[in-house]
C-alpha cells in the first residue's frame, strides 16, 4: 500500500541520527516545560521557534512537535506528586493520581500514565497515517471560498468553546485578526497600522505575542504566590505497577484512546475535555468505578491515555486541511510557516518527505517519552524542589532570550512585555487567550482566501452562498456563532480551561 511506502520513507527520514536527536531533545524539553510552573505548551513551543529557524525544516518541526506532546507527560508529574496540575489536560489526574501518591503508589501512577500516553499517542498517530491521504486529497479539491469557510468553522468552534463569555471570546478572536493585519497588505503592498515603525512592516511577530500572552502573563500572575508544595520523590522500586494495576489499566487505556482520538479531531476541543470525558467514561464503565477518587489506577490510566491521544489526533486537521485545532497547534502551524512550509493538503504534494518524516517521528517520540521519562522521574521531581520564585526569575530570563532571538532585536522583547501585560489583563477579565492566538496565526491566510474568493467573483459576495460547500461551512460557522442565543451550553471544563 502507498501509505506504508510513504510511512517507511518517513521513518528513513526520522531515523537519521540528527532527527533522532531532535526528537529526544524535544521530548526532554517538552517534559521540562510541562513540569515547570509558569510556562505551558503554547509559550514553550513558541519560545523555541526562534532557536529552530537555523535548523532544516524536518528537524525543527520534529523537535517542536515532540515538545508539544512531551508537555502532556511533564504536566502529569506534578498532578500525581503534588496534586497540582502541571498543565490543564492533566488536572483530572490529580484526583486519583495524588491519592495513589498518598498510598505510596505515585511512581506506579506515573508509569501507568507514561504507558497510557504511549498507547494513546501511537494509536492516534496510526489514525493520522490512514487519514492523511484521503483527507489531504479532499483538501486539495477545495477552493478559496471553501477554505475561508473551513477557517470560519474552526475559529467559530474555538471561540464558542473558549472561556466563560462568548462576547469576550469573540473580542479576543477579532483582536487577534486585527493584530494580524499589521504590516504590508499582501495584495496592494500598502503598509497598514505600522505607525511609521519599520519593524512593523513585516507585522507583529506572533512568537513575541504568544510568549508574552501565555508565558510572561502566567509568570506575572503567579508573582507573590505562596511557595509550592515539595514533591515526594518516588524510588525506583516504587515506579513499577503491580500485576493488578496493569490488568485494571488495560480497559481504561482502550477507552481513553477512543475518546482522545475522536475529540482531538474537533477544533476547539482541548485535551482537558478529552481527559474529563475519559474520567467520566471510567466512572460509568469501569468495574472498579466505586474506587474512583480514592486512588484507583483507572482514574490515571484513562485521562492520561486520552489527553495524549488527543494531542496526536489534533495534528490530523493541521496536516491534512491546514486547520489548527488548538492554540498549541496554531503555534506549531506558525512554526511550519516560518520554515516556509504550508501545513495542509499541499504539504503531502510539495513536501511529502517532510510530512511523512514528521509523522514517523511521532511514533519515535512516543517511544522516547516512554523509555526516558520513567527512569528520569527522580530528575523531573527534583526540579520541583527549586523554589518557585527562583524558577520565575529564570523563566523570565528565557522569555527575554526567546523573544530577542526572533529578529535579534529588543523591539520583540518590548512586544513580548506588552502582550504579557495584555495577557494578564485578559486573564483578569476572563477573556480567553486561545482565540487571539488562533486568529493571529490564521488571520493572514483567512484574509488571503477571502480576497482570492472575491477576486474570482469580481467583488461579488454571493460566491460564498452559490458554492454549496462554502455555503454549508459558513452556515455551520454562523450556527456556532449564534449558539449562545440558542442556549447551547458549553462543557463546564472548557470554561476554566486555560488552553482555550
Amino acid at each position: 500500500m502507498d501509505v506504508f511506502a510513504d510511512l517507511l520513507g518517513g521513518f528513513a527520514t526520522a531515523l537519521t541520527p540528527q532527527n533522532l536527536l531532535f526528537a529526544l531533545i524535544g521530548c526532554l524539553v517538552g517534559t521540562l516545560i510541562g513540569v515547570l510552573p509558569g510556562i505551558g505548551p503554547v509559550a514553550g513551543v513558541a519560545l523555541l521557534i526562534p532557536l529552530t529557524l537555523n535548523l532544516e525544516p524536518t528537524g525543527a518541526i520534529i523537535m517542536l512537535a515532540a515538545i508539544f506532546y512531551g508537555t502532556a507527560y511533564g504536566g502529569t508529574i506534578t498532578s500525581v506528586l503534588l496534586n497540582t496540575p502541571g498543565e490543564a489536560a492533566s488536572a483530572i489526574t490529580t484526583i486519583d493520581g495524588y491519592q495513589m501518591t498518598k498510598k505510596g503508589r505515585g511512581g506506579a501512577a506515573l508509569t501507568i500514565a507514561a504507558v497510557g500516553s504511549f498507547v494513546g499517542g501511537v494509536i492516534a498517530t496510526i489514525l493520522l497515517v490512514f487519514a492523511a491521504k484521503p483527507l489531504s486529497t479532499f483538501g486539495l479539491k477545495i477552493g478559496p471560498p471553501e477554505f475561508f469557510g473551513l477557517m470560519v468553522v474552526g475559529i467559530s468552534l474555538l471561540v464558542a468553546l473558549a472561556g466563560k463569555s462568548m462576547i469576550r471570546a469573540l473580542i479576543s478572536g477579532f483582536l487577534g485578526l486585527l493584530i494580524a493585519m499589521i504590516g504590508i497588505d499582501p495584495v496592494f503592498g500598502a503598509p497598514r497600522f505600522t505607525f511609521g515603525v519599520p519593524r512593523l512592516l513585516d507585522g507583529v511577530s506572533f512568537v513575541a505575542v504568544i510568549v508574552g500572552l501565555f508565558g510572561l502573563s502566567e509568570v506575572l500572575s503567579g508573582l507573590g504566590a505562596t511557595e509550592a508544595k515539595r514533591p515526594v520523590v518516588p524510588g525506583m522500586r516504587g515506579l513499577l505497577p503491580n500485576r493488578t494495576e496493569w490488568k485494571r489499566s488495560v480497559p481504561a487505556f482502550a477507552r481513553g484512546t477512543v475518546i482522545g482520538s475522536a475529540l482531538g479531531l474537533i477544533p476547539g476541543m482541548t485535551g482537558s475535555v478529552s481527559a474529563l470525558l475519559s474520567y467520566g467514561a471510567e466512572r460509568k464503565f469501569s468495574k472498579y468505578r466505586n474506587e474512583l477518587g480514592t486512588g484507583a489506577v483507572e482514574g490515571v490510566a484513562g485521562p492520561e491515555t486520552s489527553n495524549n491521544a488527543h494531542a496526536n489526533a489534533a495534528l490530523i486537521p493541521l496536516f491534512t486541511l491546514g486547520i489548527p485545532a488548538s492554540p498549541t497547534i496554531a503555534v506549531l502551524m506558525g512554526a511550519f510557516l516560518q520554515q516556509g512550509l504550508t501545513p495542509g493538503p499541499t504539504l503531502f504534494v510539495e513536501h511529502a518527505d517532510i510530512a511523512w518524516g514528521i509523522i514517523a517521528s511521532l511514533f519515535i517520540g512516543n517511544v522516547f517519552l516512554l523509555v526516558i521519562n520513567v527512569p528520569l522521574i527522580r530528575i523531573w521531581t527534583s526540579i520541583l524542589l527549586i523554589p518557585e520564585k527562583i524558577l520565575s526569575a529564570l523563566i523570565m530570563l528565557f522569555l527575554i532570550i526567546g523573544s530577542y532571538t526572533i529578529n535579534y532585536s529588543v523591539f520583540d522583547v518590548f512586544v513580548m512585555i506588552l502582550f504579557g501585560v495584555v495577557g494578564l489583563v485578559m486573564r483578569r477579565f476572563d477573556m480567553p487567550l486561545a482565540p487571539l492566538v488562533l486568529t493571529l496565526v490564521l488571520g493572514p491566510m483567512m484574509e488571503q482566501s477571502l480576497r482570492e474568493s472575491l477576486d474570482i467573483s469580481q467583488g461579488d459576495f454571493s460566491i460564498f452562498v452559490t458554492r454549496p460547500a462554502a455555503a454549508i461551512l459558513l452556515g455551520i460557522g454562523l450556527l456556532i456563532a449564534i449558539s449562545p442565543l440558542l442556549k447551547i451550553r458549553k462543557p463546564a471544563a472548557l470554561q476554566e480551561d486555560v488552553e482555550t
Partner: protein
Amino acid sequence: METTQSPVHDETALPAQRPVSLWIWLGIMAFISVYAIYGSFGLRLWTPRGPGPGFFPFVLAIAILGMTIIWFVQSLRDPVEASSGSTGTSMRHIVISVATLVIVAAAMEWIGFRAAILLFLLYELLVNAKLAWWKALIIGLIASFGGYWLFNDFLGVSLPVGKIPPFTWLGI
C-alpha cells in the same frame, strides 16, 4: 506548566465592586477599534478589483467596537461579581517586575546581555525571592554568563554585547 487562570495569591477576594480597571480596559478596546476604523478609511475600503487594504481591518474594528459595547452594557446590567483580582502586594510585585523587564530590554543593547541579565536576576532573586546575597550572586552569574555561553557560543544565537564603557572594556 500551565496552572488555572486564578493564581494562588488570589484567594483573598476583594470586596464586590465593579473595578475601574474594567472601564479602562473597555475604553482601550473602544479606542483601538475607533482608531482602526479611522485608519481603514485612509487605506481604501473598496477597489474595482474588490476589497481594498482597509476592508478587512474595517470589518474587524466594527465587530470589536460592537462587542465592546455589548460587554459594557452587560457589565452595567449584570450583578456585581466579587472581584478575585490581584491583591495590592501582588500588584506592586507585577508593576515592579514589568518595569524591571522594560529597563532590562532597554539597557540590553547598551550594557550587553550579560550585565543586563545579571542585574535583572540580582534584583529578582534578592528582592522578590529574598535569597542570601551570595546565593543570588552565584545564580545570577551562572544564569547570565552561562546563558550567554549556551546561546551565543554553543547554539550560535548571537546575543548583544555592551556598547558603552566600562562594559566594552570588560568585553561583555
